[in-house]
């Protein structure tokens, strides 16, 4: 018997009540799985339901139809065993860096034990902010703030890490730097990663596999296995196949075979 996949979106339909009466069909017959410790990117136009995937996986809402399974058991409500990194770092400006990292403990249990703090400091070391533990949030750059966000998401040592366009608010240079940093962190702490992005090169550089979603209602349009050897480096991006794959994904994203018009 095979072990169940880490994440399984099973035939998901998601319909939101629209403002003007017409319901919004956000996800349609969405079905894919992610194996344990696999790094999978979800790529798709904005508004196609990517963030909705993340909310379903963290149990913040249930799908209109179908179900989401984690290691074979269906999600029934909010769960904290998935770490989430958001598009904006969304840190608490009144807390120091370390207190932000341990905030989930304080928030969930009302207190932070010395052990939690030790783990928080470990996580800060992992994201290379060990020397910044007692700094204020507004003393950090955008990239550093996002590292704090990653450290916070890793605090409870989740099996699954969800990242919703985590680097899209960063400038191009920090963005590349953070991509390599994320790969390093993932190597040191293997996790099952669901990485949401609308950047094709980012998805290619980071992932084992790319799930391409269609426009709304989002459904799996394409699944691309990324062949580049790990560890990935700047050389990977210089590989002619990299550009070739990026172009072919881009071409497919901009054609609309389902529309029935010209393909």
């Amino acid at each position: 018997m095979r072990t169940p996949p880490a994440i399984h979106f099973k035939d998901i339909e998601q319909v939101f009540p629209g403002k003007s009466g017409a319901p919004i069909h956000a996800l349609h017959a969405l079905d894919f799985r992610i194996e344990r410790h696999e790094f999978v990117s979800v790529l798709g136009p904005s508004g196609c339901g990517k963030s909705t995937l993340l909310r379903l996986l963290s149990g913040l809402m249930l799908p209109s139809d179908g179900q989401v399974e984690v290691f074979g058991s269906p999600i029934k409500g909010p769960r904290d065993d998935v770490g989430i990194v958001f598009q904006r770092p969304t840190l608490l400006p009144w807390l120091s860096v370390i207190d932000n990292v341990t905030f989930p403990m304080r928030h969930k249990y009302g207190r932070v034990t010395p052990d939690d703090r030790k783990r928080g400091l470990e996580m800060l070391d992992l994201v290379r902010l060990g020397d910044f533990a007692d700094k204020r949030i507004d003393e950090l750059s955008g990239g550093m703030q996002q590292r704090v966000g990653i450290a916070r998401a890793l605090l409870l040592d989740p099996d699954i890490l969800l990242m919703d366009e985590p680097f899209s608010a960063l400038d191009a240079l920090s963005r590349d730097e953070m991509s390599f940093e994320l790969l390093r962190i993932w190597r040191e702490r293997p996790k099952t990663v669901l990485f949401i992005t609308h950047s094709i090169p980012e998805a290619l550089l980071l992932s084992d596999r790319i799930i391409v979603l269609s426009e709304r209602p989002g459904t799996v349009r394409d699944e691309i296995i990324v062949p580049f050897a790990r560890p990935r480096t700047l050389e990977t991006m210089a590989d002619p196949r990299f550009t070739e794959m990026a172009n072919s994904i881009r071409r497919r994203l901009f054609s609309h075979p389902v529309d029935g018009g010209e393909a």
Partner: protein
Amino acid sequence: MTSPTPQTAAQTRLAALMQPVRMTPRRRLLDMLDRFTPFLAFVAVLVIWEAATHIFAIPSFLLPAPTAILGAGIAVDPMVWLDHIWATVRVALTGYAASIAIAIPLAVALSDSRFLKRTLYPMLIVVQSTPVVAVAPIIVVTLGAGDLPRVVITFLIAFFPIVVSTTTGLMATPDELIELSRSLRAGRIREIYQIRLPYALPYVFSALKISVTLSIIGAVVAEFVAAQSGLGYFIGFSTSFFKIPQAFAGLIVLVVISLVMFRAVAWVQNRFAPWSLPKSERK
């Protein structure tokens, strides 16, 4: 190995640029002038005012000279001053405290409940749109003697900005943090006091700064209507006896009290929640 090489032209130019600024006496004077510009402008206005009243022989019941105001202020017994100041400050601070104590929990309730937002909020706007000055005499008749009617009037004036601003702040919390809180199943209470309320602090403090001066206005308005002491009462009776310089002295004391109370709130914010200040205002 490294023999002293002759300086290149570029190095010489750079060295010249990097010279510390020399403080010539002239420069120092300009520096001082720049620092004290606001103060100097203020003094200049006083001087012009003083001169104008003498040159144009403006009668003191129209516009008393600053020196006349000062003289009238000094002529009043300090104990009398303290009495009036204490009466006004007492009412203002009580009304202010009451407005904070009621407005903030109310804002939490409003931000948390769609029902309250749709029922209570419109009513609050109606209350706010009623000119409190016009209602003041009614309140005095209803609530009778003592501080109570004055505190209520102050409360009515100071309270609304705090409710509106705090509600806005509570709603401005990033959705992601709320999602984080929900996924941790931390509960409503912790969501409010560990995330929403701190997030609202910048909004709360802007309102607190506005309301603290409003509370002085409220107390004075109430004293105009009915009081036996307080600076509003003091200004009222000074005017009715045509002691205009004395009325002006009362006005200036009011301005000073307002400024001090405003600074006090700003100090509290700076001391206990410096992150809630815009970067330019942080010390």
